[in-house]
């Protein structure tokens, strides 16, 4: 086997993120993904360039988008000879896309790739009831008028009621918020701590905008230049006034619309390459994607749905011999404030680390001042598949500005999975 190569993060671009059914309600996933990838192409002058791979996807898709990544590439100014793979791993999609490409770059199989993700819940497909769908298929297949008529025998108007898309877990019937509420109760995460984390996320993101941190990471879309979920004036006191969003009845619910991410539309993309490829094109190396790890746990049997990142990170640390404290930045995706707080608490918990992570003892606490320093999903929003690429881009830029250092990424996903990665400079 040849020696592994370092994987350079060359740059990233994203659209501003917007709350569902607001500024992007007329846009499709393909349009948003095209905008993000094209902006990355423009920024690095990749017009007509053949990339070895584009891994991209969306979580909420139309059946017609089965070849989303390749169709998107064909609409950009990248060489049409650039192959693309449509991928999906819930909220881990674009981070997983980056890890897949990175492994191939490291092994020498490819030299350059884009990993990207997009999501819109404004353009979700309306699904007809099973019964009505079967009738439509029968009508299509019918050859005679009689057969056609037969297809509609016993038809009731109720069948026409569309089945709304849901982000509930198919195996538990609970929504992600319900699951996270259970986790918050199990780990005794207070409402105050959640609101404080959420307010801090807004304030840090707003400060990052003010200093121009996002200027070269973002491209305007549909006249929007900033994430429209962000509230610079957000305070824990104001957030404390919101009513629980999931557990509305018991009086013990702590998750609210303020400390949970809203449904969001947007897209993000990141460019990875070998150092040689970047140098040949005169492109910068912001940081290196060192290693990733994906884990899953049995949430159906009662594990916390969004606790898998604790496992992924523990396994990643074991493989690299690093400690949880050996990082300059932590980018822990904020699906819910409670998810982040549960994760941190679990790492500090001796029993959890022994029993669930198979370690000798607790991983310990992290320096909170290094956590999500430019704000995270609670502030900017969370278009599911786009978040991984956003986070990689932010962390790479942070490390580049610092000059050297190490950062940890973790993203929790539906289905009880977690994706983690280490980025270094």
């Amino acid at each position, binding site marked *: 086997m040849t020696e592994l190569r370092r994987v350079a993060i060359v740059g990233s671009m994203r659209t501003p993120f917007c709350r569902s059914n607001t500024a992007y309600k007329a846009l499709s996933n393909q349009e948003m993904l*095209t905008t993000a*990838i094209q902006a990355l192409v423009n920024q690095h*002058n990749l017009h*007509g360039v053949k990339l070895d791979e584009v891994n991209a996807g969306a979580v909420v898709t139309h059946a017609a988008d089965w070849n989303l990544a390749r*169709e*998107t590439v064909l609409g950009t*100014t990248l060489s049409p000879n650039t192959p693309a793979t449509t991928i999906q791993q819930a909220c881990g999609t674009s981070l997983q896309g980056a890890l897949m490409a990175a492994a191939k770059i490291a092994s020498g199989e490819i030299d350059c790739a884009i990993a990207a993700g997009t999501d819109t819940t404004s353009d979700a497909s309306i699904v007809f009831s099973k019964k009505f769908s079967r009738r439509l298929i029968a009508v299509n297949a019918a050859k005679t008028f009689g057969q056609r008529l037969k297809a509609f025998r016993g038809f009731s108007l109720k069948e026409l009621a569309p089945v709304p898309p849901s982000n509930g877990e198919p195996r538990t019937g609970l929504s992600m918020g319900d699951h996270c509420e259970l986790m918050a109760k199990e780990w005794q995460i207070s409402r105050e701590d959640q609101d404080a984390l959420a307010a801090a996320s807004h304030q840090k993101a707003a400060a990052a905008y003010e200093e121009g941190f996002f200027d070269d990471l973002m491209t305007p879309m549909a006249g929007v230049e900033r994430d429209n979920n962000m509230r610079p004036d957000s305070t824990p006191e104001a957030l404390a006034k919101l009513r629980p969003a999931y557990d509305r009845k018991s009086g013990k619910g702590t998750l609210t619309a303020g400390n949970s991410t809203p449904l969001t539309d947007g897209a993000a993309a990141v460019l990875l390459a070998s150092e040689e490829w970047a140098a040949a094109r005169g492109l910068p190396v912001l940081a290196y994607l060192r290693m990733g790890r994906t884990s899953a746990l049995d949430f159906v049997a009662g594990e916390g749905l969004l606790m898998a990142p604790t496992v992924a990170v523990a396994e990643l640390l074991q493989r690299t011999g690093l400690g949880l404290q050996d990082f300059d930045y932590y980018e822990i995706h904020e699906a819910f404030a409670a998810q982040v707080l549960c994760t941190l608490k679990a790492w500090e918990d001796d029993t959890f680390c022994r029993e669930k992570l198979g370690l000798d003892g607790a991983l310990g606490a992290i320096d909170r001042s290094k956590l999500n320093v430019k704000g995270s999903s609670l502030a900017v929003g969370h278009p599911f598949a786009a978040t991984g690429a956003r986070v990689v881009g932010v962390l790479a830029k942070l490390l580049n500005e610092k000059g050297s250092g190490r950062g940890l990424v973790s993203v929790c996903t539906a289905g009880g999975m977690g994706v983690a990665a280490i980025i270094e400079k």
Partner: protein
Amino acid sequence: MKDGYMKFVHSGAGRVIAKTLGLPIPAKLRRKGAPSTLGPVLIGGGELTGLLQSQVAELGYQLGSTPKQKVHALVFDATSIKTPGELANLYRFFRQNIRRMDRCGRALVISRPPEDCDSPEQHIAMRALRGFIRSLGKEMRAGGTSQLIELSAGAEQNLPSTLSFCLSPVSAYVSAQTIRVNAVELAETADPKAPLAGQTVLVTGAARGIGRAIAETVASYGAMVIGVDVPPMQGELDKVCRDIGGRALPLDICADDAAALICEAARANGGLDCIVHNAGITRDKSLAAMSDVQWDLTMAVNLQAPLTINAALLEAGLINDGGRIVGVASISGIAGNKGQTNYAASKAGVIGMVERYSSVLSAQSISVNAVAPGFIETEMTAKIPFGIRQAGRRMSSLQQGGLPVDVAQTVAWLANPQSIGVTGNVVRVCGQNLLGA
């Protein structure tokens, strides 16, 4: 001047009536300042494709698109076409994409000047494009335009200002034009929002109509304007100049001391970076009935005064190196017009001035161009009798008259120091008027 018919067909009932009677329904042109965001630009063709893509992206246009999206512009690089047979590539590009064109879309072809081509096949193929672009202009729907840019070899850096003009709503009423861009060393790129910052521009006939729009437009791009008009118009002239922070210079350009006064004003401002010879008059009469005064006055204002003033300024070195001279011709000067032997002669003379002086002054990097307005809604055209006026408006591919600002934006493009590679061009601002085309 209001175009009542245009208003009528855009009213609910008017549209129905116009459709039933098969009357033309002119599109509402998208002009600068319209709030909508423009759709993506699709670029294809030869070796310059990548360069065009980066220049177009740099101009702030969206490049990526999905098949469902309407596109704002189709841009084809025809510079790699070597034979007439290869024109099929151009045909295919537009054939495949033309239906995706949004309203007020732009079709743009970049080619090489035919006479620069070494091989006869390429010369002929490049020449063929002029016919293509003119026909496409007539087929464009809903306010769309087409242009051909003949780019000299090595003039790639000179392209962006013209690319920007052709793609942007500022060229709303310019269609089916062939624009030649030469390779000329460029000054530092200025702030794209104020490309005329620090430039002194003198505009004659600035008190009203097209001249006023020119003064206001170049000022909006940062220019210091010296406005000239006849003393009886001083009230209007002062107001225009005050509003744009410019300087009023009331004088009759035909007066004996006009050139000297203009030189004095130019000197006081460190020389002129651009002069726009806009002042013009009509004295229409059939030749048989024309008086000497009608002939003499028209020739004096429209042609002789610009020539005298240019000569004096150049002699005194008061047109700065890299300066621009912009004449205002007319489609009458190209096509001729009944009752306008005097006017058409003067305006064709302006075209002669462009042809002659552009080559003479190229050594000093001074560009000489003219705009040739078609039917523009001003007090000049308001004098035309009703029936002819209506016909004048409709007799173009865009089926409407233009506005003074359309001419002014075209002048502003030619006045831009980044456009110095554009010289010897007569650009019609006529919505592809049938006259002389």
